[in-house]
């Protein structure tokens, strides 16, 4: 068994270098495929993180209170809201707190707010929902309270965002599946050419009593080596691209969606696992498919 493996490894490496042209061709195609796949992975993960963070940011209802609402009235509202199942917590945001939040969000431009003079922001209640599904009802109830100026709740927007992100994810999944199939076809063609060129050798090996695995082993490994090398190349390129992207556009994304891009390290660690397993299986499946015909008897 060990000896058989040794033979396979030796032959696989010899073949890997001997068929340089074809090896390079399939290496490049799989690498390209994996890079595109990696891009879709980045997009898909980021979109899903973005949606999640938007969801969690907007599972709140803002209830703006009229300026003449007394703190007793506010307390009554808070108590009755706290009694509801749909409500996780209610926080009273005073004018001053609201202004501080504003300033924080505006960052270095916050000094502009200093020119406002009297604080124009209302007192408000911030309701955090246990479940986004109860949002509509809670918002409606809030509107019935006296002393309420306005109720802000963004369910429609959230629904739309979720729908868009679902579509993007589904699209990414289809593209990824398609790319995997294409890669398998490419590898199996490469190996097929190898097999063709080694046809007489295979025939002779069979005449001297080689088992199918003796013949198949090296080619299987050859496919897997191609897959692993391609995965390593694609990984390096994808990681570099993503890190560059985060450096260049991370801040803009943060300003636009008020959430960060997914940490490169986290994504890349996942990508290593994905690429390696994909590379190995693409290589293995590709070579098995291409050899089946030749090894029948």
């Amino acid at each position, binding site marked *: 068994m060990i*000896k*058989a493996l040794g033979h396979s490894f030796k032959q696989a490496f010899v073949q890997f270098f001997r068929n340089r042209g074809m090896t390079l061709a399939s290496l490049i195609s799989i690498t390209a495929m994996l890079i595109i796949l990696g891009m879709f992975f980045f997009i898909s993960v980021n979109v899903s993180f973005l949606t999640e963070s938007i969801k969690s940011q907007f599972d709140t209802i803002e209830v703006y209170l009229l300026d003449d609402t007394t703190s007793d009235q506010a307390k009554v509202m808070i108590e009755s809201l706290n009694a509801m199942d749909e409500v996780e917590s209610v926080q009273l945001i005073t004018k001053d707190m609201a202004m501080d939040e504003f300033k924080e969000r505006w960052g270095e431009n916050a000094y502009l707010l200093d020119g406002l003079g009297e604080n124009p922001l209302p007192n408000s209640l911030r309701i955090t929902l246990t479940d986004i599904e109860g949002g509509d009802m809670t918002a409606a109830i809030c509107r019935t309270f006296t002393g309420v100026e306005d109720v802000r709740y963004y369910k429609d927007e959230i629904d739309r965002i979720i729908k868009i992100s679902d579509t993007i994810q589904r699209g990414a999944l289809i593209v990824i599946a398609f790319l995997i199939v294409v890669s398998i076809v490419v590898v199996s063609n490469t190996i097929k050419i190898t097999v063709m060129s080694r046809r007489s050798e295979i025939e002779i090996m069979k*005449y*001297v009593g080689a088992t*199918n695995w*003796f013949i198949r082993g090296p080619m299987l490994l050859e496919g897997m080596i191609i897959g692993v090398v391609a995965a390593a190349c694609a990984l390096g390129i994808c990681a570099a691209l993503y890190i560059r992207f985060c450096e260049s556009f991370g801040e803009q994304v943060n300003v636009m969606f008020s959430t960060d891009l997914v940490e490169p390290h986290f994504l890349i660690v996942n990508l290593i696992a994905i690429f390696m397993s994909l590379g190995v299986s693409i290589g293995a499946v590709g070579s098995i498919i291409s050899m089946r015909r030749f090894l029948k008897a």
Partner: protein
Amino acid sequence: MIKFDDVTKIYDGNNVGLQNVSIDIGDGDFVFLVGPSGAGKTTFIKLILKELEPDSGHIYINGRDCTRLSNRQIPMLRRYVGMVFQDFRLLPNKTVFENVALAMEVMHTTRRTIRRQVPQVLTMMGIADKADKFPSELAGGEQQRVAIARAIINRPQILIADEPTGNLDPDTSWEIMNLLDDINRHGGTTVVVVTHDKAVVDRMKKRVVAIDNGRVVRDSQEGEYGYDD
């Protein structure tokens, strides 16, 4: 050793391969298989090697019924049947040593054993000095010696030679035949030689089985070629 019991093989389109053939080749026999092209000699060999399945009848090799073998068992069968071909079938990008070693590698023989036994067999074949040459650097007769070395290195009980002298001049042919005879005499290996070489057959005075139109038409000890082609 090799026994065909009423074996029939008809190809698609009603081409007769073999029809009701019964042959018994004993342990240590040396048999010439003769007959015109398309008579069924190749079918005979392919049936022994399990490249083909017979339509009916039984084939026994080394006393074992090999009529039905799983794909997994076929390589094992071929390990005790050495094959020599008219076109030598050596790997052009491997040296003589590597070509012979291949037959041992497929059986996962240790490298040390390979290094010890390959030179022995090459010496036996009289080509010890050609070990590092590539097949293209050798004469036809020498290439056939390499092929024979490869066929016998695992000490098969049966050696089948399909037109082994078809590409060789008469003198070289005679040398190769004598080599096969040696292997038969000294190694006790059963040798089956398919040939068109009338001169060789007539001179060797061995058992001759003639096949024509898929049937055994003659089986004589110390026979002659018997055709004028």
